């Protein structure tokens, strides 16, 4: 009997702890959802229970967000920025990662660590000179400035990830292709790249999410509403002076969060093996 009690107690504590973690992590997102669906009179009444609807839920905030703000434009901007940055990153990082993994010999390791360190140079150190460079190129206040600047952190990050993936691939595959008459370059294009498509897909997803998560450069370079990416647009344009449009803010934050959350969950394991594999091997 005492044994059963002890086991029950332990199980309760375990699931209690799990529940605590889930609530801590997910509550802000639940809060976004419920806020975005409440009427303003329900939202701004301190006597109502905040966790559920006192008045009937409404889609008014979403309607306002899509019809009265540039939200759709911001989503499109983010999509264009993400696609362009991903293209630039793939073209430069795939060969770089391969070179680091296979071709640079003893220097490869030092170069790899150098590239990794570049990723750690923070935007808050570079945004001042970069805003000057962006202005000199005539790109100030334009989303193309972000297309230019974002590869500075996506390339190092993705080259590092890809280096880990390429190191894990058996070199015999390329050697076989070379024996069969391929050049080294041909072996890379015809064997390595097609075989590492899952890794490349991971890199595409993470480049995209990194561009969505970035905030400092966007804040520094862009002030026109119609050029903003979605993260910046939601948090700056839905606050007018001292007035926070909480319903619209939460609706926008929720919509912009969903794709990133899904992407992370699908590709998390590959991401972790890349980030740690390159480091400890």
């Amino acid at each position, binding site marked *: 009997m005492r044994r059963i009690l002890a086991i029950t107690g332990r199980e309760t504590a375990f699931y209690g702890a799990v529940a605590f973690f889930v609530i801590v992590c997910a509550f802000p997102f639940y809060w976004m959802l419920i806020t975005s669906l409440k009427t303003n009179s329900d939202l701004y009444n301190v006597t109502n229970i905040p966790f559920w609807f006192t008045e009937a839920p409404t889609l008014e905030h979403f309607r306002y967000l899509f019809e009265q703000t540039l939200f759709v434009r911001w989503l499109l901007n983010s999509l264009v920025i993400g696609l362009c940055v991903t293209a630039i990153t793939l073209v430069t990082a795939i060969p770089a990662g391969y*070179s680091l993994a296979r071709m640079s010999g003893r220097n490869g390791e030092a170069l790899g660590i150098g590239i990794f360190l570049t990723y750690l140079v923070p935007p*808050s150190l*570079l945004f001042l000179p970069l805003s000057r460079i962006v202005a000199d190129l005539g790109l100030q206040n334009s989303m193309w400035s972000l297309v230019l600047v974002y590869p500075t952190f996506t390339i190092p990050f993705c080259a590092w990830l890809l280096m880990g993936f390429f190191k894990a691939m058996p070199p015999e595959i390329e050697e076989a292709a070379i024996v069969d008459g391929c050049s*080294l370059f041909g072996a890379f294009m015809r064997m390595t790249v097609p075989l590492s498509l899952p890794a490349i897909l991971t890199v595409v997803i993470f480049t995209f999410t990194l561009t969505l998560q970035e905030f400092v450069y966007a804040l520094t370079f862009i002030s026109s509403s119609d050029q903003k990416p979605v993260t910046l647009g939601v948090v700056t344009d839905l606050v007018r002076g001292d007035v926070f449009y909480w319903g619209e803010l939460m609706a926008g934050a929720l919509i912009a969060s969903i794709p990133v959350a899904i992407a992370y*969950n699908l590709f998390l394991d590959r991401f972790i093996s890349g980030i740690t594999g390159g480091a400890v091997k």
Partner: protein
Amino acid sequence: MAVIAESARLAVKPVSRFRFILDRRDVLGSIFIAPAILYVLLLVGVPFLLAVYYSVSAYTLYDPTWRFVGLANFEQIIQNPVFLETLGNTFLFTFGSNLLGLIMGKFGALLLLRPFPGRKIVRALIILPWAVPIALATIAWEWMFDSLYSVINWTLIALGIVTRDDAPNWLGSPHLAMLCIIIINAWRFFPFAIVIFLAGITAVPQDVIDAATVDGAGFWRRNYQIILPMILPIVAIGLIFGIVFTFTDLSIVFLLTNGGPSGATSVLGFEGFQVGIASGDVAHGAAISLFMLPVLLIVVIGMLRFIRRREI
């Protein structure tokens, strides 16, 4: 004879030279990595040097001359008591939130190690704070910390812990505001810590753990004398990310407190932005940002040496 040989050589030359380049491992290796290095040199290396030069010049948006002033900017900054407070805030913010994040991460990883029904869904939910853009999550927290409509205060009042009259004004009082940004950053960081701990722990060979168990090591001993030392390199990598990105962060402070109340939550990145961009005093802004550099270097070099030493 010589002529024939020469013409034969010429005839095959274009193909062979082409193949020669594509087959040389070192040459192709350099060509492969050149675009990435060039991009990074031009848009990280050059701006970095420019930032260093800004910090020793008198450059402002209104007076864009490159007059060299030596270390005068740094001197003025250090003598400013507000800056010293900012520096202190940055350290408190960084170490507070990383420590809290690590503890929660270790604890969360222990929970997720055990298989239980619904573990996949639980993991998906726990990853959310780290995945979602921090600017968006910060806005949700700002709404939760609202002075009047705070859901946290509502709960505290409903539970009878505080009354509406003395409910805490989270973002309006200096210590609470600092606590808020630490909590938000720990909240953002700890899912990453969980994932890092999990990756490390699952990589420890089971026979090592079994051997320790057979030798009589209990739960705590296994955890802290066997597993923890083995996963330290991976944890160190995670910590590099955590410390560097917290120490240089400005988005949480910018959105949540704007450095206030009265500078209580101002951190280096935010101060650099305020001075360099908002006020247009680029030289002083760059100098403030450069104060991050020594800490970053110490952290990164220390961690890298630690990792390498453990490999040997």
